């Protein structure tokens, strides 16, 4: 009986202590609309300036951010060229305004964060949320720093070759942030 009296409260207390302030936390979806349409060729790229502070869900939790749980770029990619294109997304941590692919590549702060997404000539691909999240595998740490930082950065969609032409319509950056007090 004595064991019985103590084991339940002890286990409950251990659980509560282990959980601690983690009880006051949650996962929140933050979406940021990208310029649409975003038309891209090697000599004419359009930057997407991202300021997550303009999104209410991010602003409300900006001081309590713990992690970037999930991230994806969604939208419809249309290959307007005559050969297949592998679309990558690059990021510069600070706002930039490069106008061609070479300038992005020469920017020492630029990091490839997403891709490649192959789109056949003339094809339109609406990327799925799961599929897009998987394409962030290597770029997640760089974006994590920005999301956990000031939330301001610039994205560029580029093709993987010297000749390509595509556009992104209904583009959205979707992040799931974890916040807690």
């Amino acid at each position, binding site marked *: 009986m004595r064991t019985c009296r103590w084991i339940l409260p002890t286990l409950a207390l251990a659980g509560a202590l*282990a959980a601690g302030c983690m009880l006051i936390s949650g996962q929140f979806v933050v979406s940021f609309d990208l310029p649409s349409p975003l038309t891209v060729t090697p000599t004419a790229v359009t930057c997407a300036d991202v300021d997550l502070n303009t999104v209410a869900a991010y602003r409300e939790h900006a001081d309590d951010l713990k*992690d970037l749980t999930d991230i994806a770029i969604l939208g419809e990619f249309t290959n307007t060229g005559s050969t297949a294109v592998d679309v990558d997304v690059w990021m510069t941590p600070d706002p930039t305004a490069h106008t061609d692919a070479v300038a992005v590549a020469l920017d020492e702060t630029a990091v490839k964060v997403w891709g490649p997404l192959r789109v056949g000539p003339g094809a339109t691909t609406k990327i799925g949320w*799961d599929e897009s999240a998987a394409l962030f595998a290597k770029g997640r740490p760089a974006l994590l720093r920005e999301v956990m930082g000031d939330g301001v950065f610039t994205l560029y969609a580029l093709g993987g070759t010297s000749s390509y032409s595509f556009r992104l319509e209904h583009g959205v950056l979707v992040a*799931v942030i974890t916040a807690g007090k």
Partner: protein
Amino acid sequence: MKRIVPILPLALALALAGGAAEAAGVGVGAFGGTWIPVAQEDAGTGVVYGLRLAVDVVPLLRLEPYWAKSAPGDVEETFAGLPYTRDGGEISAFGLNAMLSTGGPLRFYPFVGVGSCRLTREATDERTEIGYDAGLGLGLSPLPGLELDLRGEFVVIPLDEASRKSVNVTLGVSYHFLNLP
């Protein structure tokens, strides 16, 4: 996983030491119900099911090793006018619950527990963490040896400085095939 290993034999040893000469019993059961996310915008309501072993080793105390699988629902959202679906993932858990165990055809009991939880989701790194649960149950014994349970439990899985939280509402049935004086 490693952290939970010492807990199981310790809890069993405590219980056995306190009631070796008392009533004992063993039962096996299954349960299923609804998994409800708490403060998780990246998961929908899903299902939970599993198996459990009821071990009465001390009067008023029941230990219950369990295995459970939760399938949080997919998230469906519309971004920039297009619909998207994100996989809700899966949580596999095994652990131990401890609860007050009173006799009679109708019983109302609190319980607490701890377990190892493996979280998986498409395009997300797999994680294994210790989770904690606490809840209330209502037990009914319509026939000797047979028990029906309705339970509500709050589950917390700490993740670094935050957590995943859910409420499980389950119905279970168990058969007690071994009752020793």
